[in-house]
């Protein structure tokens, strides 16, 4: 990142000034956004007493060089924009250079930070805006900010805070939304010593939704994707069987920024058409990507709101994205003609509207807001209204497994298996590629290769996340004849490969010896192993190389299309698939299951 500089007066004035720090949740939001801007891929948030007494945010981001640390606490000091023009191309979350000084002014703040390349870190501390410490300390790479006794020097504002229980909900809400907006970042939220959630940070938004909302919501998710002109919409929404009494669970992320927008909210709701009961609101997370010059984020001091210059077009696209996702989600009608896209002429499109909706957290201060924590434990009772052809069966209680009795070892999303169907029966294999399954009133076609990929991927991921990668040392090391260049690359990568469970060593100048492989890939053929290692390396040293590696590993380890499977093997595969976090799409994003509803088949045969 570029060094921090003080913005010129004129630019500073262009930035709408305002209160940055409203309540503990806003402190958390500012600190987490700073961590995200600093490129962190793991952020730990801990609060006590709803954040009123204690807030701590620890990241593994870039850190601040020691000579710039004091500057970071000066008003309008930012490393993120340089000039007024930059304001129209904002890609970072922060840009005002206002957050840290504002927080430091009303609390006891301590920051310890160290860029990876500096040998020593810096500790800086403030009390009510007065600097109390500035020293060099040993510290892990990254930044840790602790904020204690918020508003201790402004008793009037302190009095304005709510009970810890309700402040806590605001914190859960904002951290949840930030986690949804950043699925490639691992978030861990702890409140009064209790872990509220951990997201896997593997780039999979669906997994984040599972972590935050739990299995009830997770298993009713429908993927959304739509690309048009200058907006790309993607994300997940929940099927209409599940809904809430407020808009709290509607999350919109525009160009990486979590925003409040009644325009987007009503577009999403409209997309459900008549499927939701009155005064009930959907659950969903939509990510919109559009040209940064088409949005203005500097509308509100807390950056919560945005202004869109193409609002009616965006409204229409969001509506259609949601509508289509719901249409194709459950009752898969393989014989239907594709509908026209341009059906929204009848949709009431508002013109250019500036979003002025009060964010729900303010509005619902007095109302009986549903507790985030309890809604996470599924307070809503879904009206399972039988969909013409969805053939949903009433939910079966989750099977009691050993994990009920044993303390969960699972560090990541502690989700229970997705049970979409009450029962399923393997019919057989088609073309040695697809497994046919009867599941309640649906016929499922399961692609055996991608299904197995999904299973293996989750297995490898769980091992990596819980630091329990299991590797099988080889009795007979495998000899890869790679040629000098490739062999050298593999050796350069040997530390990263070891983390994934591959132990490689040099063998002459042209060859490598593989001494162990991940347990899931035991008895991989030499040729496949070679392709796999080169594939992992080819992705380059992006922060994402692990995800790529796991995808490739799953692919190599999975049964191939064209391989005949015994009935027992098919049963195993399908059982494991249905217990994965997301049985519907493979790690590459391809569908795993195609569902044919009985009613559609009946109709096809003219039975109804």
């Amino acid at each position, binding site marked *: 990142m570029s060094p921090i500089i003080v913005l010129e007066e004129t630019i500073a004035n262009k930035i709408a000034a305002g209160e940055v720090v409203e309540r503990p949740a806003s402190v958390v939001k500012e600190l987490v956004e700073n961590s995200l801007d600093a490129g962190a891929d793991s952020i730990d948030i801990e609060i006590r007493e709803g954040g009123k007494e204690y807030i701590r945010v620890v990241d593994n981001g870039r850190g601040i060089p020691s000579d710039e640390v004091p500057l970071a606490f000066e008003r309008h000091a930012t490393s993120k924009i340089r000039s007024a023009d930059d304001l129209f191309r904002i890609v970072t979350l922060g840009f005002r250079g206002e957050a840290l000084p504002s927080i430091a002014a009303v609390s006891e703040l301590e920051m310890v930070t160290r860029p990876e390349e500096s040998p020593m870190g810096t500790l800086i501390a403030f009390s009510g805006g007065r600097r109390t410490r500035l020293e060099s300390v040993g510290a892990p790479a990254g930044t840790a900010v602790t904020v204690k006794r918020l508003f201790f020097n402004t008793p009037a504002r302190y009095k304005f805070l709510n009970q810890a229980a309700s402040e806590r909900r605001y914190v859960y809400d904002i951290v949840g939304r930030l986690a949804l907006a950043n699925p490639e970042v691992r978030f861990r939220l702890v409140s009064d010593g209790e872990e509220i959630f951990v997201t896997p940070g593997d780039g999979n938004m669906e997994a984040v939704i599972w972590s935050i909302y739990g299995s009830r919501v997770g298993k009713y998710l429908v993927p959304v994707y739509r690309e048009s002109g200058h907006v790309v919409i993607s994300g997940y929404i929940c099927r209409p069987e599940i809904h809430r009494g407020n808009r709290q669970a509607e999350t919109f992320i525009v160009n990486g920024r979590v925003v409040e927008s009644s325009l987007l909210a009503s577009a999403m709701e409209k997309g459900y058409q008549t499927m939701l009961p009155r005064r009930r609101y959907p659950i969903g997370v939509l990510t919109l990507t559009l040209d940064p010059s088409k949005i203005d984020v500097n509308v509100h001091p807390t950056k919560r709101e945005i202004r869109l210059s193409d609002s009616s077009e965006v409204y229409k696209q969001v509506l259609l994205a949601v509508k289509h996702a719901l249409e194709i989600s459950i009752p898969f009608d393989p014989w239907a003609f594709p509908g026209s896209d341009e059906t929204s002429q009848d949709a009431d499109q508002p013109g250019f509207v500036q979003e002025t909706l009060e964010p729900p957290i303010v509005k619902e201060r007095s109302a009986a807001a549903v507790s985030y924590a309890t809604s996470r434990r599924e307070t809503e009772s879904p009206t399972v209204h039988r969909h013409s052809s969805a053939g949903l069966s009433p939910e079966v209680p989750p099977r009691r497994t050993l994990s009920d009795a044993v303390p969960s*070892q699972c560090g990541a999303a502690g989700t229970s298996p997705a049970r979409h169907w009450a029962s399923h029966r393997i019919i057989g294999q088609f073309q040695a590629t697809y497994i046919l399954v009867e599941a309640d009133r649906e016929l499922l076609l399961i692609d055996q290769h991608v299904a197995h990929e999904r299973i293996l991927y989750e297995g490898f991921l769980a091992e990596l996340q819980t630091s329990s*990668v299991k*590797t099988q040392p080889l009795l007979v090391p495998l000899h890869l004849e790679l040629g000098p260049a490739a062999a050298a690359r593999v050796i350069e990568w040997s530390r990263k490969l070891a983390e994934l469970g591959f132990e490689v060593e040099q063998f002459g100048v042209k060859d490598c010896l593989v001494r162990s492989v991940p347990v899931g890939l035991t*008895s991989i053929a030499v040729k496949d192993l070679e392709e796999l290692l080169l594939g992992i390396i080819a992705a380059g040293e992006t922060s994402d190389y692990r995800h790529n590696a796991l995808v490739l590993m799953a692919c190599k380890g999975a049964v191939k299309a064209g391989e005949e499977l015994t009935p027992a093997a098919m049963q195993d595969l399908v059982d494991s698939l249905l217990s994965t976090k997301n049985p519907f799409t493979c790690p590459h994003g391809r569908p795993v299951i195609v569902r044919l509803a009985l009613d559609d088949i009946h109709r096809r045969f003219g039975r109804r």
Partner: protein
Amino acid sequence: MRFATTQGEMLRCLDMVGRAVANRDVNPILTGIYLECENGRLTVRATDSEIGIEACTSVESDQPGKVVVEAKYFLPLVRRLPGGDVFVQELPEHQMLEIRAGTGSFRFQTMAADQFPALAAAEPKPLLRMPSQIAVRMIRQTVYAAQKDQGHSVFGGVLMEYADGELRFVATDTSRLCFNRAAVPNGENFKMILPARTCVELQRLLPSNPDSMLEIASLGSQVLFRLETEDVILVSRLLEGQYPDYTRVIPSQTDTEILASCSELISALERAELMGKKGPAIVTLSVEEGIMKLESRDVELGEANESLSIEQKGPSVTSAFQVRFLLDMLKTTDSDKVRMGLSSGLSPGMIRPVDDDDYIYVLMPVRVI
């Protein structure tokens, strides 16, 4: 061609060769079964060019000849015929084969028999002759350790070697290795790598009859097995390549030796095996003071723990293994007790039946990083 035999005898021959019929019609003739009759001898043959099987039987015949009929229909027909006599004759003018049994009469189109490949040009001299039962045991106790469906790699095969008056079978998928041997006198030394499938097909053909004898011969890049008593031959392609030196892999000793009940161990491991929801189940074996503790866990599922009392010689030791690897071996032993050699660290473990030094299983422990 014209001959008479019984439905039972005919079916016996067809069942033997049926598995060698090519199921995809790379070469359409190979989806057929070749029948040849000469001097009162019926030869039935099928091949998919990887392996070929030929079975013979005596029949009453007054006209020699040869035909090829499509296996997919001919075999089920013979299976469904009533027991008793069967009359088979070629109708060359119609290019048909007629089969009569009971009151029924059936005709099949035939294919050109000249184009059907022979299995071996000449009868090679056998390298080794031995009781079939030995081969049955040796295959059963090795073939599972070969890699499945790995094309032409040597790890997808079983090394069959004769030296120093003993026949040895070795298979490894690189993480574990099976070694099996039997003393067989009067052979000529050889070393071949059989595809795993060949072993499986051979095993299927080999009878349990204790008098049955098996001959092994080389055809250069192929191997020929002859079942004398049954009058059956199997010819298979061999795998090419260098088989790793297995003698370096088998440890000469281990730190701790354990004597355990095979059936107890199998049932405990079968329970532990359930702790592998998304990957292979791993079990940690901790041996201390005559007790072996088995522990396995799955991050998403839970864990299993149990203890077996065993006899222990040597210090306490802990090692983790893939459950399947242990079960594979234990399920193929005939003894009710096994000797297990464990060493700490990353040295391989070893399992042998209690009273048998001819079957050795070596496996690498799993490491958690």
